[in-house]
């Protein structure tokens, strides 16, 4: 019994043991070990990836219903691990240059990843909460890691205070749900709800309030409007590779959790939560595209861009169908590659040894470093949703699912905002290609940046040719969520 449970949670247990080992190793080696530990952390994530991808773990629930292993969770765990691995890879050189190479940073990133895997596998309100807290606490610390820098401290503090508030909302909502359904286990909640609804009852208003609180808390974690206020400040203040990490892996984990909790225990309340998700998706898409227009700092721009992207992904969830979830999975997969690629470009924006973050600094990049300009162009076109790049397919699948589910207005507004959004993505391309260069960026950009840039641009450009494994995986994952 316990052996099966342990086998099912093997990737998580491995990550936990590896993180503590790395921590001890770092504590004994001191600060010299930082780059070695960073490399080891990437290896650890790669092994966890292998354990999920190749390991033939039994599916089902473990630990008395607290933990679930299914194709849906496995797919998203792989995406999270890729995003986190890229994130750690890009961090090391940056923190060395900035003189903040502390071995705790990669260890905390591994621990945050562990929290994300636990969130994805959560099958109970309690395990959801502990997973979410493990992730958030690690992220608060990483955001504030440059404590002598005013902006970084501000980012950490804002993130912490608002994050604690949202955790409070989550707990309050969970207690309401527990009170009105008598269970914390997702399966039991779902069962009790469908029994109560099938006997002709209407859902209790208190239960709806609890559901709304839970939705608000998770919307905060994935920075969906109207719970997005912290995002631009935190993204701008945190060290850039940390921002890259924030904008990818936690978003994937949060939205996975969102989709699971809404379709699994609250699947029978789809009429109640659909309107919330439609509103949140609309507001995120509109704000993400309009507010980004006047930004001059590229990190703030990426913050609004990530808010908009979460809006598009939520369109898939709003559909409430299997096709919608499938679209959501594909969208998030493509999103992390676009995001990681763009941040690899931003991290390479260095002039005479210091980071620059303004869009103006990209002037004439096509003349000074044509390859990087080309890669950034690919990412920007993809974000704008121009075929045949990957971003187009991501948007296409979620909008198609929304239209099929009868949410035509939502899909139309989504397409309109995506056209508005194209304006600021294309502006970056215009700055790179048609403005005269003022200064050139430092070269070389480093092996791992080249690797991340190459992998993500190849993925984006050739997605149209090799999309079938991802499409099939997402279809399998979505059907697993709707089967159980």
């Amino acid at each position, binding site marked *: 019994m316990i052996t099966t449970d342990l086998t099912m*949670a093997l990737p998580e247990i491995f990550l*936990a043991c590896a993180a*503590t080992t790395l*921590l001890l190793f770092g504590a004994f080696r001191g600060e010299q070990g930082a780059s070695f530990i960073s490399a080891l952390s990437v290896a650890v994530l790669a092994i966890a990836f292998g354990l999920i991808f190749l390991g033939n773990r039994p599916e089902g629930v*473990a*630990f*008395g219903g*607290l*933990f679930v292993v299914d194709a849906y969770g496995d797919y998203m765990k792989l995406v999270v691990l890729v995003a986190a691995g890229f994130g750690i890879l890009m961090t090391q050189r940056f923190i060395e240059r900035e003189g903040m190479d*502390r071995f*705790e940073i990669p*260890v*905390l990133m591994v*621990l945050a990843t*562990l*929290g994300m895997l*636990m969130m994805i596998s959560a099958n109970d309100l*309690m*395990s959801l909460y*502990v*997973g979410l*807290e*493990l992730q958030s*606490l*690690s992220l*608060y*610390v990483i955001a*504030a*890691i440059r*404590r002598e820098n005013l902006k970084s401290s501000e980012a950490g503090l804002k993130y912490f205070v608002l994050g604690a508030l949202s955790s409070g909302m989550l707990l309050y909502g969970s207690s309401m749900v527990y009170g009105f359904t*008598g269970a914390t286990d997702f399966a039991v909640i779902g069962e009790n709800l469908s029994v109560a609804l099938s006997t002709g009852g209407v859902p*209790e*208003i*208190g239960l709806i*309030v609890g559901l709304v609180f839970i939705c608000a808390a998770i919307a905060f974690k994935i920075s969906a409007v109207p719970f997005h206020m912290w995002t631009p400040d935190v993204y701008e203040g945190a060290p850039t590779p940390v921002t890259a990490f924030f904008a990818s892996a936690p978003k994937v984990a949060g939205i996975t959790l969102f989709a699971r909790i809404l379709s699994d225990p609250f699947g029978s309340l789809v009429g109640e939560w659909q309107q919330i998700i439609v509103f949140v998706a609309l507001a995120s898409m509109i704000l993400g595209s309009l507010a980004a227009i006047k930004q001059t700092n590229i990190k703030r721009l990426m913050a609004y861009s990530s808010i908009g992207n979460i809006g598009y992904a939520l369109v898939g969830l709003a559909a409430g169908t299997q096709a919608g979830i499938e679209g959501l999975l594909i969208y998030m997969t493509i999103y992390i590659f676009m995001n990681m690629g763009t941040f690899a470009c931003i991290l390479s924006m260095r002039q005479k040894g210091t980071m620059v973050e303004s869009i103006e600094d990209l002037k004439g990049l096509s003349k000074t470093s044509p390859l990087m300009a080309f890669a950034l162009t690919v990412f920007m076109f993809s974000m704008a949703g121009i075929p045949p790049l990957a971003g187009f397919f991501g948007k296409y699948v979620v909008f198609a699912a929304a239209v099929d589910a009868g949410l035509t207005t939502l899909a139309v507004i989504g397409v309109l905002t995506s056209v508005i959004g194209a304006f600021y993505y294309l502006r970056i391309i215009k700055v790179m290609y048609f403005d005269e260069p003022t200064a050139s960026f430092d070269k070389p950009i480093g092996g791992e940046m080249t690797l991340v840039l190459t992998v993500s641009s190849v993925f984006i450009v050739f997605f149209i040719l090799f999309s079938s494994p991802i499409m099939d995986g997402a279809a399998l994952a979505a059907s697993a969520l709707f089967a159980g």
Partner: protein
Amino acid sequence: MIIQALVFYVFAAVTIAAGLMVITARNPVHSVLFLILAFFNAAGLFVLMGAEFLAMILVVVYVGAVAVLFLFVVMMLDINVEKARQGFKKYLFIGGAVGLVLLVELVLILSSTVVSTDVSVVASVPIPSLDEVHNTRALGQVLYTKYVYLFEASGMILLVAMIGAIVLTLRKREGVRRQVIADQVNRSREEAVEIKKVSSGSGI
């Protein structure tokens, strides 16, 4: 029964009164002391419900650690209460309005809810009867077995909190004299002691 009800009302009334005093007291140190009083009375309420473990934990953790930490922070930071209260009037209206809306919503929910007759049965299902096993043992029986996953996960959260506290506060300072036990032990008599002849009556 009547005594139990009486004790309940005493504990509950003192808890609420102390809670009010926490937010109205002018001196922050008094606020913390009232907070401790509220914790003690809440612990009393737990004992009344037969949850003696929670009562003890509340006293040990909240009174013993958290409240004392609060006290330290309040005393060390020397918070200017009058300054912190400056915006009070300005935000009173909007804050009060939001609070009122929330209150009305909660009242509406509660008034529209019918409490099921078998609620006490449902609520007592996860708890073994007090005659069979006492509260502390009942918790111990599930904490490391049924909920081992959550227990271990909480351990990881505490580890992160510890790492965070160290990473964000530890500073490496130059020129700090540290104790090196090995050097102390290895010191020989020749390095440490010098014998001087002191001629009597003249001092050193």
